[in-house]
């Protein structure tokens, strides 16, 4: 290796385009382009997310507007016209709601809860993990023991518990509106420990490094050290757990809603739709259950595959 006293300069003008080009040439783009599974997963996830986000504008019907509902449309099989003469590509449920539209609106709720809960878990877990890893001692011991206790119970059980307690504290007339926020809180609190553990480990590694020592010698505020030096260097694994955690949160939300303790039926998520659909499975109206269930599987699977790929791509040792 040669040690040039003056390294070759790069023209500053083309900085922006060259940065984009460097990105296109980077390992992560290469590994994406060479993984067909990941390409398919990302397309599926993107389509599902777009469908959910754009539901109010692109859904064929508004299933929650009673004015447009017609009981004569009920139980229409997929790809056929109802008695009232309207066409439904995925059929309708017992109340005549278009299954495709309910899925689009339902994914909206599922994704909103999933994203918010994961973000909440991430912020809380990363914050506590940084504190535990950097300060060590009694802080570390208390935070990590709480995390250990929590990890020894299934996340869904913790979420149920938090959900139950929170519901008991909220007056009944506000429960409907608060339900979705309680759900986010419950799933978020059930999942922070994963983030805290990973970030604590990574922080303990980083805090030993000399660049942190250099800042400590200068007397930089520990909070600033954590925020500006340590945090950017521990975010890689956090993104990976965040992606996989998103898939988990979506499934947890669906489970809670399936059990009837999640979002209210006026705002059905994929889990609620599955609960409604299962009543009709054995009477021949299979589509009311099948399509929401397939959507949930596709969503969770594609996000999970993206998380797996991200983990491998960011960890060169596995390649």
């Amino acid at each position, binding site marked *: 290796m040669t*040690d040039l006293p003056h390294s070759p300069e790069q023209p500053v003008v083309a900085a922006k385009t060259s940065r984009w080009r460097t990105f296109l040439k980077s390992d992560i783009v290469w590994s994406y382009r060479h993984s067909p599974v990941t390409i398919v997963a990302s397309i599926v996830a993107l389509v599902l997310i777009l469908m959910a986000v754009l539901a109010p504008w692109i859904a064929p019907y508004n299933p929650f507007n009673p004015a447009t509902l017609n009981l004569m449309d009920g139980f229409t099989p997929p790809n056929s016209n109802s008695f009232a003469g309207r066409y439904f590509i995925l059929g309708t449920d017992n109340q005549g709601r278009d299954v495709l539209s309910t899925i689009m609106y339902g994914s909206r709720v599922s994704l909103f809860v999933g994203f918010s809960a994961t973000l909440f878990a991430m912020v809380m877990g990363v914050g506590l993990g940084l504190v535990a890893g950097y300060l060590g001692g009694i802080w570390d011991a208390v935070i990590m023991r709480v995390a250990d206790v929590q990890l020894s119970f299934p996340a869904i059980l913790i979420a149920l518990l938090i959900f139950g307690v929170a519901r008991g504290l909220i007056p009944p007339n506000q429960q409907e509106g608060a339900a979705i926020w309680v759900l986010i809180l419950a799933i978020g609190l059930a999942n922070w420990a994963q983030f805290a553990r990973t970030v604590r480990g990574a922080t303990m590694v980083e805090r030993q490094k000399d*660049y942190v020592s250099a*800042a400590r010698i200068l007397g930089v505020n520990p909070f600033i050290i954590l925020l500006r030096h340590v945090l950017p260097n521990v975010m890689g694994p956090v993104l990976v757990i965040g992606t996989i955690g998103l898939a988990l949160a979506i499934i947890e939300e669906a489970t809670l809603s399936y059990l009837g303790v999640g979002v209210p039926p006026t705002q059905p998520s994929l889990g609620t739709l599955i609960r409604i659909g299962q009543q009709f499975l054995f009477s021949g109206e299979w589509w009311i259950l099948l399509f929401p269930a397939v959507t949930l599987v596709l969503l969770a699977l594609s996000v999970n595959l993206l998380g797996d790929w991200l983990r491998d791509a960011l960890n060169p040792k596995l390649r």
Partner: protein
Amino acid sequence: MTEPVLSIKDLVVEFPFRNDVFRAVSGVSFDIMPGEVVGVVGESGAGKSMTGSAVIGLIEPPGHIASGEIRLKGERIDNLPEEAKAKLRGRRIGMVFQDPLTSLNPLYTIGEQLIETIRTHLPLNEAEARQKAIDLLTEAGIPKAAERMESYPHQFSGGMRQRVVIALAIAAEPELIIADEPTSALDVSVQAQIIKVLKKLCANHGAAVMLITHDMGVIAQTADRMVVMHQGTVVETGTVGDIIRRPQEPYTIKLINSIPTIQRQAGDVAPEAAANDDGAYVQVKHLVRDFEIGGGGFLKLLPGKVEMFRAVNDVSFAIEKGKTFGLVGESGSGKSTCAKMIVGLLRPSSGQITVDGHDIWAGGAGHKERRKRVQMIFQDPYASLNPRWRVADIIAEPMRTLGLARNRTEVDHRVAELLTRVRLDPSVMRKFPHEFSGGQRQRIAIARALSSQPEFIVCDEPTSALDVSVQAQVLDLMQELQDEFGLTYLLISHNLAVVRQMSSAVGVLHNGVLVEKGPTDAIFDNPQADYTKMLLDAVPDISRVA
């Protein structure tokens, strides 16, 4: 004419990448005669280890031998099928690697590993193999070998483990031993013993040795001939004495000249020694640091006796303004702990440190004075720069934190000036650390240390992660900056040659105790403490060419 044991001819090793082919070795040729020790030297990336891997057929895919041939006793081995190559390894070619921790299996006893190796290659029964194993260990200098056969690798020290590895390599009476940096992970005093063992065993068993190392001192004391490699090619081949005393090629001349030696070179003026301790700029008095052993978290809350380990034991020294004090010691001697206490990272258990008359551990005022005056340069330039920050922000951090420069233009101007001072182009300030080589990163680290306008800089092994030619440049730079700004240095190093070249006074640390201190020349020419004598004797130095 006798046939060479190993003959390498026009060897090319290539690594195909996505859109490029990297030639790690391009056209290397040399021979090794029976019983000969040939040193292969070069800086990192020279292709010396890759040549060794090619000989034993263990190149990591996608790397492969693109052309050329390797002959062992005249028989071509580079194109053999995998099973045939596996039979060569251990039987006809023995291997000694750098890290004795990873080259022994931690789950088996030393005896089991030796007996297994012996019986795989030689037609001996269990009892005979066992006897041979004990003989080998004794020969490698392991006392009470018969008893130690039942020990596991973790019960041995690093040096002992490397002796076992050498015994394993020689077990099947191979014709050739490939030793890749066999002593680089060891302390100087252990290193000297291991070199002797390796040399003795190979001579006794008639094995030729290919000794791969970056350390010219080791070669000077061990090898008969040497091969100098640079960027995948052989630059020069010859006897060790010839190359060290009369290097021919420009690269070799530059390499030899950049190696510091523990002998004072003619023409060098000895830096003035420290006069008296009391008026000195930096004073360290009766410094002690204890560590608690084991137990953490909730265990600390339990009552009971806490075991203590004294890492630094009553260390006192003083440094004159504008001078360099070298602190020498092997691993575990407490030299880095001293550094941490002096820069304010670790609170001393007792003792006092004053810089320019201010007690740096005396509350907020002391900390403030310390931050203004004291800075540190670290060993590993890959860990000392935050990989997510741009060079400009890294260098500006001290001045921003201490409020030395406020607005953006002023900061940029100062950063550019500092980069010029460390002989880097100011335009590099928009780049990230990973775009630089090790030596360039160390320059950036020096620029950062200078950014707070310190008077005293603690340098903890500032060059031990760098190649020799880069080391010479960085040391020169440090010296120039000292003259320019009147800096005071505390130079901490295990490398005695570097300390001799840089310091005016030296302290020798051993197990936390400062066994000897004094002017550099006095210590090096006339050491008093037994430990210092032993250390100076053990150093492999190019001035001691065989």
